[in-house]
């Protein structure tokens, strides 16, 4: 290794703690965003954390029995049960005298927006004391790229072939959770790790149900270049396709990043194989919807507390 001992010995400027609770050797694809999401979240939560992971890419990424890539305990739970498994686990830990461990449900978009929404809604209604993290790669990736209700309008997946591309907008899970009036809802993005880290820390210090929705690009499923993962995350925010915001008690909305100039969605879409078939008209439709959602968000913030 050609280590430049000669250069003057500045400190590395790290914006996140050095501690790692996720280790190498895991089974994610090259350039996987979901993996970064885990890495950052655990940096914020630390070792006294327990995860409930339903079926999703992460149930593979972590590694097969008898291995695990993480330094925290995991309950690999049934697909539809992330939230309630966590709530059950929390209750159990409390009853055996552990009042400290932060219990986290860690699920993909399918496990959150679709098959897991009922358990999540139940937990939110009871305000059970867990953090729910949804890492959103916008399709069922672990089973090979099928549409979920998080899949955006226009996208190709294996169940929405280009001739029948997804023709419904992405389900607005954040608004749905906000409507549950839980103490904390936030969106985050692996391309903004400091913001993500801050939000998880904030969530950690709140009691009740906290929901964090993390944008996590998936090169394999989106047909993008692995090295574009961070770029895509930034574009998602700059185009306002995936705005960063927080909602407290379902009523106080705060947008964290407002791009000075919104980039056109096309810039975002055209980097991705899953959108390559889109016509100019379809892209215009998407732009419209993005604008509408952004305007709505601005209004929410403006009229807060709602």
């Amino acid at each position, binding site marked *: 290794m050609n280590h430049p001992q000669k250069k003057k010995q500045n400190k590395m400027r790290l914006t996140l703690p050095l501690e790692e609770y996720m280790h190498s050797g895991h*089974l*994610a*694809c*090259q350039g996987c965003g979901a993996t970064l999401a885990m890495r950052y979240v655990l940096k914020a939560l630390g070792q006294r954390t327990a995860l409930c992971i339903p079926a999703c890419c992460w149930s*593979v990424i972590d590694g097969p029995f008898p291995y695990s890539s993480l330094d925290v305990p995991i309950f690999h739970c049934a697909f539809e049960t992330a939230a309630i498994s966590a709530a059950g686990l929390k209750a159990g830990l409390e009853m055996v005298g552990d009042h400290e461990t932060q219990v986290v449900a860690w699920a993909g978009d399918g496990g959150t927006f679709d098959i897991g929404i009922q358990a999540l809604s139940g937990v939110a209604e009871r305000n059970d004391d867990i953090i729910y993290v949804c890492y959103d790669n916008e399709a069922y990736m672990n089973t090979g790229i099928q549409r979920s209700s998080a899949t955006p309008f226009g996208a190709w997946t294996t169940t929405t072939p280009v001739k029948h591309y997804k023709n419904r907008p992405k389900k607005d899970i954040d608004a749905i959770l906000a409507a549950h009036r839980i103490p904390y809802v936030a969106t985050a993005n692996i391309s903004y790790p400091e913001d993500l880290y801050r939000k998880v820390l904030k969530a950690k210090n709140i009691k009740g149900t906290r929901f964090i929705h993390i944008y996590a690009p998936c090169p*394999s499923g989106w047909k993008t270049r692995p090295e574009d993962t961070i770029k895509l995350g930034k574009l998602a925010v700059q185009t306002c396709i995936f705005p960063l915001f927080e909602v407290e008690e379902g009523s106080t909305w705060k947008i964290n990043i407002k791009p000075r100039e919104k980039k056109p969605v096309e810039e975002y879409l055209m980097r991705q194989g899953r959108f390559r078939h889109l016509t100019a008209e379809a892209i215009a439709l998407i732009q419209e919807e993005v604008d509408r959602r952004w305007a709505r968000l601005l209004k929410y913030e403006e009229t807060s507390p709602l």
Partner: protein
Amino acid sequence: MVEIRFHGRGGQGTVVASKILADAINKEGKFVQAYPEFGVERRGAPVYAFIRIDETPIFDKSRIYSPDHIVVLDPTLIEAIDVTEGLKEKGWIIVNTDKKPEELAFPTKYRVATIDATHIALKHQLGTRATPIVNTAIVGAVVKVLDLARLESVIQAVKEGVPLKPEENAAAAKEAYESVVFHS
């Protein structure tokens, strides 16, 4: 019965190669069974595919442990894993490489054939330098070395079996069929 194991990397179309080969065999009126490794595939990670060929219907549904021949789509795998595991004596090892068979250090109980599928693929505009799509070329070479089917069947199977660029793929298969280096 002939049993072949394919070695490749996730993303290289290893399973498609075995499927196209099966299609070609089917066109010959023979019986065939092909299957991928039963697991999680990740781009770059080593993957396997298997094929059984026979003159009569195939009832054996167990996995192949002692293949008659092996096919290696990515030469770096030779370092990474033991590609010859279970390979029967006198079995062919068909490798995608720019080397000649004798330049490869396989035990002499095996027979070795080589084909520069990467070169052929790139020549026919299949994939990029970093990730050339070599699977159709490989099929051409395999069919030739093992004398499994007529070239027409292979070309037809390739054309029907690839998602894009049927002509280019067919040309690659043909070229490989014709240029594979082996001494039987």
